[in-house]
């Protein structure tokens, strides 16, 4: 199958590659760029394990063709840490609040939460739950993911994180 040349900015770096028109963005990221932090859980846009940030929006990279991302700016989990290499507020929140278990949904969940907090820096619990409802988790039951995002929001806003009362 004839290949098409694509260029995009991924995690701040200009990249290029030859892809088939049918190549999925997630396969381009994982197999060509070797950015394996973005995972595949369903290939039908339901689970969100493949969520990446594309031109400022959360998208599920299993149902975007690489050619559709030509010229786009993409951020994956590999770019979420602080510039000095320490865990970002979100990453730290997930660890401190036990917002992950097997870790498979975590990259998509963090990338999605990253965008959610850009859109709404101070979401309440219902807004967080709705905001991450495109991302499935089989391990945590979401409760600690919600707390992780609340922790991060507080830290980013310079506020004190209050543990939700049990």
């Amino acid at each position, binding site marked *: 199958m004839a290949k098409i040349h694509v260029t995009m900015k991924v995690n701040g770096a200009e990249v290029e590659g030859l892809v*088939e028109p*049918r*190549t999925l963005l997630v*396969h381009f990221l*994982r*197999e060509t760029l*070797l*950015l*394996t*932090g*973005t*995972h*595949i*859980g*369903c*290939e*039908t846009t*339901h*689970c969100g*394990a493949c969520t990446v940030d594309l031109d400022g929006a959360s998208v599920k990279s299993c149902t975007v063709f690489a050619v559709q991302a030509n010229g786009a700016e993409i951020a*994956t*989990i*590999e770019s*979420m*840490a602080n510039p000095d290499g320490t*865990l970002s507020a979100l*990453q730290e929140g*997930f*660890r*401190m609040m*036990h917002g*992950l*278990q*097997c*870790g*498979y*949904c*975590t*990259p998509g969940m*963090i990338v999605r939460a990253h965008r959610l907090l850009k859109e709404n820096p101070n979401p309440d619990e219902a807004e*967080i*739950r*709705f905001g*991450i*409802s*495109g*991302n*499935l*988790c*089989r*391990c*945590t*039951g*979401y*409760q*600690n*993911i*919600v707390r992780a995002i609340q922790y991060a929001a507080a830290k980013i806003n310079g506020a004190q994180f209050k543990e939700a009362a*049990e």
Partner: protein
Amino acid sequence: MNDMTPTREQREARLEGMGCKRKRVEDIRFTQGKGNYVDDLKLPGMLHGDFVRSPHAHARVKAIRKDDALKVPGVLAVLTAEDLKGVNLAWMPTLAGDVQMVLADGKVLFQSQEVAFVVATDRYAADDGIAKVEVDYEPLPVVIDPFKAMDPDAPVLREDIKDKKDGAHGPRKHHNHIFEWTVGDKDLTDAAFRKAEVTIKELISYHRTHPSPLETCQCVCSFDKIKGELTIWGTFQAPHVIRTVVALIAKIPEHKIHVISPDIGGGFGNKVGAYPGYICSAVASIVTGKPVKWVEDRMENLTATSFARDYHMTTEVAATREGKVTGLRVHVLADHGAFDACADPSKWPAGFFNIVTGSYDFPTAYLAVDGIYTNKAPGGVAYRCSFRVTEAAYCIERAMDILAQKLGMDPAELRLRNFIKPEQFPYHSALGWEYDSGDYHTAMKKMMESVKYAELRQEQSAKRDAFRQGKTREIMGVGVSFFTEIVGAGPSKNCDILGIAMFDSCEIRLHPTGAGIARVGTKSTGQGHETTWAQIIASEIGIPADDIMVEEGNTDTAPYGLGTYGSRSTPVAGAAIAMAARKIKAKAQMIAAYKLEVHEDDLEWDIEGFRVKGLPEKSMSMKDICWAAYNSVPPGMEPGLEAVSYYDPPNMTYPFGAYICVMDIDVDTGVYKVRRFYALDDCGTRINPMIIEGQVHGGLTEAFAIAMGQEIRYDETGNVVTGSFMDFFMPTAVETPHWETDFTVTPSPHHPIGAKGVGESPNVGGVPAFSNAVNDAFSFLGSTHIQMPHDYWRNWRAAKGLGVVA
């Protein structure tokens, strides 16, 4: 002592040992996308394999034509059963003593069955090849309804064994019958029913569902022709068992097989068994001489790679008018699908379903299970439960509610009247188990006080009056569940997998500078073993948990273990870890005594090391003992500080819990709202409360999904109608209720650290709590039992059936 001297509490806290909410070691890599999952592996020259699957549930395979597929660019090979016969691998043995087709041999027996394996240079080319494989099918009549499978004129499904009168577990009664398994005293139980003042009888079905971890099943097989060695990276919950199975069926010497389970994206039982994808990838690698990757997609995972439950339990309870149970009789029709590939300990065709007497003191009980074949996917894995314990807990917990309803008694009160009493432990159940410990009354009462149970019932009563008066269209249910689990398989006297006793193991090696590595025979699929195993060691030998690296999943380095499933890691491997640590501690004591020039008996343990009794300033830390172990051990002693333990547990452990669900249902729409869910778990000693709580949240969410809608459903022609996440209920953060957790602690008397295992309790106890809430809501309208799953439509249908909706 100056003010800077740390207190005992501070010293213990620095170790981050047992009881500490230690943050997880794993999270550093997982939160940065640096986990190492199977599909992340990319080897030079690696090929991809993918399956041609059957669209039919039952059909004769008349011909498979591969020529056009082999012309597709990138396609290198198409394997069929005929090819596998050359290496005697067209069929493979199952864990349950049956055999299973690896690729369709003459016929297909369920929709999505593996028919051919296309090997290509990449996954897209493999898909192109699949589209070009032509298969001629001749459809055959299908058997989907398990109650029709043993009709005299039912189609013969398994022609390969149609004349076999005996299966792996005794005589077969019919060509679609697999086994009959009976436990208990039938005569005594029948007599109890004849004398009973009150009896109930109900068909309680637990529908077919699927564990569906977010990462599907996958592997990479790489055969080195020069060395004759096969390396398999795979999503294996039990890597050592996979190595042994491969050695037995592929005839490769076991030391030349390297099985590696890297990070695994959830298991929940799905990744215990051996699936055709593993066999075909290994054969393809041997044939091509290149690494072959197989990654199933979600639809393949849901429709072909195993299933859970599908138990149809006709349940009878005998009791006195005062509500004392006197007998239990259960018959199970167990739908195993096309092959009996249940992942149970080999001698247990129905797993530990004989825990069905639950938390109650039944003087007698009788259980019979008939396993049958249908045109459905094989598997029967324990979806976050210990081998059919979830089915058993659902059965008895529904039955107790049905009995309470018949007696006009409160379901919590009925349970309290029948609990095994604390002084009865160790308790011998009527169906053969020895419960190690329990304090059910305390747990139940704590739950009832915490949720103000009496007030809930008053509110319900008022709401029912309001409903009757037409003032509301909402009904309220209070679902009580009190479960007893049986986990930690298991003692070699009654548990094995293909003849290998179900012990587990740990090797600890301490380095000169006081840090070390622990290798364990289990495999975390999200439970956080790298964190918690180090906590056990920290408490046992006084080395900070941060200084212990935990490694699992590599069969070349880890001692042989039976893996992680059935909540067995803590009861079995957790014990092995403590025992290995204690061996190290014993040697350390000898070294310390030598260095401190005292007798061993003059030493006592003091958090991080030994000190001389009565002379607390004379002490030696474990860190210093490590150094001494490598340069100045007592004369005659071998240097070094390491130990291995293989732990054969003397008994199972029996975690228990009291759960309650409060739910409101709108009868006109069937829409339910979980108002409150409270879960009290007693898993004995608690190693990491943060992780326990997380496990409970996750298990409850799975229970919620199963009880309220998650189902693998077939239409009458054998099509799977819930084969994607669009149709198969996977709760999002929006639907998932808020969870309240609580605990009591009743340590296991036989476990070295008193721990019992917890990962599966919330699934086991949660399902009956949800289902009892729905059934309790409808009970005042004259309903006795409504089958799961309780989705909106079925709730509405139940309301309509009860005449409260036009």
